[in-house]
């Protein structure tokens, strides 16, 4: 007979998705209400950390096979490209633009390039947080 983490593991399997949904919700709320890329990224990292606590590093790395350094790099690239995109249209660096579109299912929404910049921030925060935690966790 050995002690088992059955309660923690089963609960985290369910709670993970709730936290992830909340993170996505925070990310998209950022323009009009409290939230945004930074908080969304931290909450996402929190969801992954919950898995790390319930299972072990090997299992989680099989489940989410990302190299988080690359995630950070891609996030920075998205942010810099979003900022640099304004140069092409002959306006100052970091000028954002938005327009109203009619999307299927969602309806009338305004799409803003700041959301892309926020996506970069989101990826950087997830990547950096997970890199720090995994590096500390793996060092024997």
């Amino acid at each position, binding site marked *: *007979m*050995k*002690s*088992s983490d*059955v*309660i923690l*593991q*089963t*609960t985290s399997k369910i709670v993970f998705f709730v936290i992830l949904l909340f993170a996505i919700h925070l990310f998209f709320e950022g323009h009009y209400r409290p939230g945004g890329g930074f908080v969304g990224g931290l909450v996402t990292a929190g969801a992954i950390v919950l898995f790390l606590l319930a299972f072990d590093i090997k299992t989680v790395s099989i489940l989410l096979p990302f190299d988080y350094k690359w995630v950070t790099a891609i996030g920075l690239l998205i942010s810099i490209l979003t900022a640099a995109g304004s140069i092409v249209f002959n306006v100052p660096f970091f000028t954002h633009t938005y327009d109203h579109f009619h999307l299927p299912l969602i309806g009338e929404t305004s799409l803003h390039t700041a959301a892309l910049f926020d996506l970069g921030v989101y990826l950087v925060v997830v990547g950096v947080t997970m890199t720090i935690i995994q590096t500390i966790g793996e060092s024997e």
Partner: protein
Amino acid sequence: MAFQILLNLFIAFVWMFLKVSYDPGTFIIGYLMGLGMLFVVRRYFRSRFYLGKVWAAIYLVLLFFKELILSNINVLKIVLQPKLDFQPGIFEYKTILTKDWEITLLSNLITLTPGTLVVDVLENEKEKILYIHAIHVPDAHEAIDGIKNTFEKAIMEVSR
């Protein structure tokens, strides 16, 4: 279970297409008709008719609320007594449940009712043992029987 629900949804959608109206009212009527049809042919499914399972889940929730209120009153009595004459203790509880989610649900129900608390779960291939701390156990067998007759039975009813 899942197949029956899917079939019921399918029947409801077919009813909507037949009526060429896509409002929720038509869907609900189709769904209820599907329920009736599934009830008629319930013996041809491998699992039992799924409304029984839904009812068992609702019963489990109601049972949990009842136990919550009752055990809260019991703990309140213990707390408000001028002299402390309760006997805390830890007893082991051999459960007949096997699946992970059943164990988790049982443990959470036990923990959420005040006075009892799951300390640890031991398991091997054959059996699973819950260690439960209770604030007042004059008789461990009585407490074990209480859990067996309420929560465990209700959870078995859901997963049957």
